[in-house]
Every structure is written in C-alpha cells, then in structure tokens.
C-alpha cells in the first residue's frame, strides 16, 4: 500500500465521462485545482489521444459483432458490461451479476470520455411534468427542483455539448425557452425516411383513454455538429468561455485532435459505437477544454474506496487501484486527497463505490430505484424504398405522446425513428444476408437485386418506455462477486412494474395503428427464446436496454427522500457530491444525458 505524495487538490473527481469532464472543465476555469481519476485507459496528451482514437476505429473495423462497445479495448482491470452474452437470469457470466427477474439490458464503457464515446447523441430536454409526476398525475415522485430551475442550465448544457436543433420545433408539451434563445447549431437535416413519415402522418391522431393525441414527427435535438448558427449568442447563462459584447455566432468544435476533422456530421452512419470524425460530441472535448495548468488526469486509476472522517463524516480521501498494464492483474493502491470530492462514475459505479465504502452505514436509498428506458421495437417494410442505412442513427422522433392524462395509469413513451433499417431488430444487413445465402440459396445477380429490394424499405420504431422508480430495482454488492482487481461487481435486481408494462401495451397498440395507417407490412416478432422475453396480459414482448442508467442515488428535498440534494451534494457527507444520472428521481421519456449535463453544470457553479 503506498500513498502518493501528497498534493491536496481543491477537487478530486472520479470518472471522465460527461459529468466528470464538464465539472472539471468548469472548476479548472474558475481556478480550482482538480485531480480526475479515470478507471479505464486513455491519455491526456493530444497526439496520443488521437492515436488511441484511430486504434478504436481499427478495433471497430476488425470486430465481428460491431456492438455498442466493439470499438473499445477489452479491459479486465476496469471491466465494462457486455450485452453479447445475455442469458436468462440469474446469470453471473458477464460483468453484471444479473439476478433478474428481468435482465438489465443496458451497459456503459469505462474509457476516457466514458459512455459518450458510444452514445447516440440525442439531446432532449425533460418535460416540466416529468419533474412533478406526483403532483400532476399522482404517481412516481416529484423532484426537489422544477423545469424552471433547470431551464437555463439546459441552455448551458446545449452550448457545452454543441446541440443542433431549431428552437421553434422544440417548444412542445410545456418545454419552454427564454426569449431570444437559439440552439448553437441548426437542426441536423431530417432523413428521407423522416420526411416520408412526416408526410404520411400528417393529421394522424391516436386515442388513449377517450382522448385524441397527435402523432407528429419532429426533428430531434442532437449532440452532433451541423451548421453553426451565425446569430447564436448565449441567452440565460454565462458560458465557460467569455463572450464579448455584441459577439455572435457559434464556434463549432470538431475532433479533439487534429483540429480540422469532424466539423460537421459527414454521414458515417456509425454514431454507435464510434463516430470516425468526432462530429458527435464526446466528453473528451470537455476534458481537453479544461484549464490545463489546474488539471491533472490519471488514467487506469480505479476508485475502490472512499475514506470518511469518523468524526465529521466528511470524505478524507479516495483510494484507487492504479494498474500499468490492462492485460495484467497487478496494481498499486494509491490515495487521492482533496477538499471536495465528486463521484461521477455513472449511476451503477457510483452506487457500487459508495456501498463498498460506507457498508452498513450506506444511505438506505443508495443503489435503489435503478431505472432505464426499456425499448420496444416495431419493425416493418414501407410501401416505397426510403434509403435505409444512411445518416445518423436517428434524426427524428414522435415526441407528441410523451405526456398526457394517461400517465395516471401507465408509462409514457417517446418514439424514436431509426435510420438504419432493421439493424437493431434483425442485425441487418448481416443476418438477413447470411439467411439469403444459406437458407434461400441465393447467389449472383439474383442475390444482389433481391437483397437491395428487401432492405430499401426497412424501417423501425423504437419506443423508449418510461420506467417508474421502484426500490426493489437495485444495485448491490457482495464479497462473492469481485473483478480481477478485487473491486466489487454490480449485482442487479431488475423488473418492470405494471405501470411500465401498461406502457408496453400502449406502445404495441401505437405502432400497430401507425403501421396500418402507413400501409407498413409488419414484421415485428417477439421471440420467446430471447432473454428479455416476458408475457403480460396474454401478450409476449421482448425489449432492449437504452443505455439510460438512472436513479441509484436520487436527489431529494431532505435526507429522508434522497441520497443527494438538488445540487447533487450528499446529505450524509458535506464535502461529497455524487453526480450524474443516478441523481435523477424520475427518468421521464427523454434520453438523460442532456439533463445530467445540466445538473452537473449547476453543481459546478
């Protein structure tokens, strides 16, 4: 056991994902000294960072599965969950110990920049009602803050990420913006598929509980570079970079290095698992935007225990295991000392670290209320070719069903329109091509032509279904399950309430009705052999995770109903912040990264 000597930092941060990187950027620019610990590999040297990125690309090209983590090196010293091997729970064959009854279907990646390396880039705001579910609908819980409290922080987060959207399309279902607000970049062009669906669904409504709701296609705000708005100016917040009086126009940030790459999205159709040109935001942009003289980053440093002062209950230090070689189990134990500490390691790793450190003294809500968006897919063939497999993974959605009186009785959802054909439901084009050759015996011109005809009309909806908080959905630890460095592996208990399952039923009704309206040949098929298959009210469903890991250290008004306060400060430990999606008391129907970024910027201020 060795102690590093012995600088005392103003702030020690665990995790280089978007939460940790944004907080580090902001604090270093305000003059604080920061030590950032990242469990995975990476480099704070620009040219090495670029070489690493090229290596990720090569790993991706050579990967047979091309899954969400396929671009990143396997690292048993800081393991990431794999979704390739999901089997029916209980299952401890992966990094997660899945206790069921449902599999937890989402993962993350432990590497520089965290899971923003493989995120899709969707940057939706939560709806005002998502913050007050209890008072509006009598279900779930209220947040200790409202949409209004977060409104300008959303603007700030959109600035830091560089979000592309047109503001006059985004003010639906109570979302509002300060006067004169603009997104930093113009909206990403909507795909040809989006345009066809917009046309086809004009005037379409759908009924729930005797009320009609519009089914309207809207462009999705995205953290990928489009055309910068020449009239952009921050409204409602003070950016980290100083803006001169009268200055206008957003400056686009491309690849972290070299600077000339990744200005605008080039249509690589590969946001997940990796954008080759870094036109999609990833957190290394913010990490490298920190004030370097105030910043120290240690990679391959896995936080393993938080040490508390028994008198004051404040954090004294964070112990971490530093490994030289990710292919070897050897490490040295080192200690990071600071005045303030921030855990920003993601909802599962944060909870795990706190449970490992506090043991029986842990807050009763630590690790509880784990949530995700179970995604129900509906797929089919449109009557006309729409040019599948082109562009960003999704450029539009149907957000008009995100809110309504039905939320008293069932989960809401947002519909994501997928641009990559049946890549998710059917592993297209791989699986169907293999089928064409092996099962249908096709070859030559016949293969080429039939395959084109079959794929060009493919499309799918993804229903991101709201999950309500349940204390029984949890992350726990046990000495029986540890990784190679002796750190705990997350044990996950996971299920859906009837509230959420009723959302599945409504989603099914919705795509069936829309498919009929659009003359879509329905090919949706939920296979009982899939590890996520379940039956409810006589209907079979299978689903996938969205990667939206939320709720394990929820914020509350007091220590009775929350682990942290609305600034993500721990109620139990005055100099500790537990930051990220784990702080969110409800998940709503928006991808949570933008909300997390807004919360973290508010924390840093």
């Amino acid at each position: 056991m060795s102690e590093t000597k012995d600088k005392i930092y103003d702030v020690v941060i665990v995790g280089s994902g978007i939460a940790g990187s944004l907080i580090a950027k902001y604090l270093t620019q305000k003059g604080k000294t920061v030590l950032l610990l990242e469990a995975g590999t990476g480099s704070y040297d620009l040219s090495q960072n670029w070489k690493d990125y090229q290596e990720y690309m090569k790993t991706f090209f050579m990967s047979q599965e091309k899954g969400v983590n396929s671009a990143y090196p396997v690292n048993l010293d800081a393991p990431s969950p794999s979704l390739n091997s999901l089997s029916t729970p209980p299952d401890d064959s992966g990094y997660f110990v899945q206790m069921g009854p449902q599999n937890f279907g989402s993962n993350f990646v432990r590497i520089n920049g965290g899971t923003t390396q493989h995120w899709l880039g969707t940057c939706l705001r939560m709806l005002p009602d998502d913050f007050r579910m209890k008072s509006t609908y009598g279900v779930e819980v209220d947040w200790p803050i409202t949409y209004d409290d977060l409104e300008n922080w959303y603007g700030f987060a959109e600035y830091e990420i560089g979000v592309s959207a047109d503001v006059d399309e985004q003010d639906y279902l109570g979302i509002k913006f300060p006067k004169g607000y603009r997104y930093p970049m113009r909206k990403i062009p909507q795909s040809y598929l989006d345009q066809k669906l917009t046309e086809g669904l004009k005037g379409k409504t759908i009924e729930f509980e005797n009320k009609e709701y519009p089914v309207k296609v809207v462009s999705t705000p995205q953290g990928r570079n489009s055309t910068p708005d020449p009239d952009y100016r921050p409204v409602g917040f003070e950016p980290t970079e100083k803006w001169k009086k009268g200055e206008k126009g957003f400056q686009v940030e491309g690849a972290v290095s070299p600077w000339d790459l990744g200005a605008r999205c080039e249509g690589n159709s590969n946001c997940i698992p990796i954008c080759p040109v870094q036109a999609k935001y990833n957190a290394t942009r913010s990490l490298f935007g920190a004030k370097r003289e105030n910043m120290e980053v240690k990679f391959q440093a896995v936080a393993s225990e938080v040490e508390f002062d028994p008198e004051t209950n404040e954090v004294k230090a964070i112990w971490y295991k530093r490994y030289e070689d990710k292919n070897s189990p050897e490490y040295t134990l080192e200690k990071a000392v600071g005045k303030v500490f921030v855990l920003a390691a993601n909802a599962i790793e944060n909870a795990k670290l706190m449970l490992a450190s506090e043991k029986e003294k842990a807050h009763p809500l630590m690790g509880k209320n784990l949530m995700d968006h179970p995604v129900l897919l509906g797929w089919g063939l449109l009557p006309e070719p729409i040019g599948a497999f082109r562009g960003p993974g999704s450029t539009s959605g149907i957000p008009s069903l995100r809110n309504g009186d039905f939320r008293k009785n069932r989960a809401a959802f947002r519909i994501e329109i997928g641009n990559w054909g049946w890549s998710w439901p059917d592993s297209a084009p791989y699986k169907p091509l293999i089928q064409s050759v092996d099962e249908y015996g096709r070859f030559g011109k016949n293969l080429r032509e039939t395959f084109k005809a079959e794929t060009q009309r493919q499309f799918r909806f993804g229903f991101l279904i709201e999950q309500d908080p349940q204390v029984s959905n949890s992350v726990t630890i046990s000495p029986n399950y540890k990784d190679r460095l002796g750190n705990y592996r997350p044990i996950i208990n996971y299920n859906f309430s009837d509230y959420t399952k009723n959302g599945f039923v409504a989603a099914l009704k919705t795509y069936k009705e829309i498919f009929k309206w659009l003359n879509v040949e329905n090919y949706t098929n939920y296979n009982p052999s899939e590890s996520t298959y379940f039956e409810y009210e006589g209907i079979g469903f299978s689903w996938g995770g969205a990667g939206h890991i939320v709720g394990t250290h929820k914020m509350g008004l007091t220590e009775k109903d929350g682990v942290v306060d609305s600034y993500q400060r721990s109620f139990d430990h005055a100099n500790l912040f537990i930051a990220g999606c784990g702080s969110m008391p409800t998940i709503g129907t928006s991808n949570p990264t933008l909300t997390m970024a807004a919360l973290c910027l508010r924390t840093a201020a």
Partner: protein
Amino acid sequence: MEKQEQRKWFLRLSEALTGYGQFQLEGTGNVDDFLATLEEIVKPDITNRLLLEFSKLWENDKDGNTLEAGIRNHLMTDPLLGPVARNLIKLWYLGSWYQLPALWRENFGSHAGDYDHVISPRSYVEGLVWDAIKAHPQGAKQPGFGTWAFPPEVD
C-alpha cells in the same frame, strides 16, 4: 492449378457468385486476400476442386445461359463445395469468414482459422453488401453532410 490460372478462375467464380463484375471485384483490393483466406482455411486442395468444378461449368456454357443453373444444381448442392461457395459469397458481401457448418467440419475436417472473423479493415469496408443496399459501410466512405435527406437511388 497454376497460380495465374487459379486467380483467373477465382475471379470468374466470384463474379458468378456475387453478381458483381470483375472490374468492381478487383477494385475492392481484396481478390488476393480472399483467395489466400480460402487456401488457408479450406486448404489448396479443396480450393482448387471448387475452381476446377466451376471452370467445367463455365466451359460447358456454350450459349451463355446454363452457368447459373449449373451453379445452382451442381456446385451449390455439392456437400463439399456448396458450403465453401456460400462462404465465399459471405466473404465478399460482409468481409468476414463464417465458420463452416458442423456437418461439413465433421466430414471434411476442421481447420485452424475456421471461426467467425473479419479478414481485415479493408475487407469490412469493401464489403459488397453496402453497395447492394445502396448505402455505405457504417463508419467509412461517408457520403457527406445531409446526404441522408436525399431520395434513395432507384434503378
């Protein structure tokens, strides 16, 4: 089979199996890699038998309209050569070698290298499937900003 002869028949066979002309196949830069892959995994003997059988079908196709039926009825149904020919199609379209069927391995031997794997970054990027679906390999040959809003190519 003599090397140059072998390559000629490999290219002709690939053309007949994929529906892509020799010009396009050469343009992928993968011809020699794929021939080498075949020789390495199923061995030169089986590779040459495949090429020889195909060359007979080709030579017999005097009017230019029996080759396809010949492939369908003789090559593809052959227990030894059929699965290898199908693997060659998958190699060209997807850039990956897929493990041969269990029955084939039982009867004709299992070989090192006969597992699912990508041959090279280029084999992935030049996979014919991307052209077949009128798209581009995901993560490469990016068509440019906003191109996804264009109508699809129809012919």
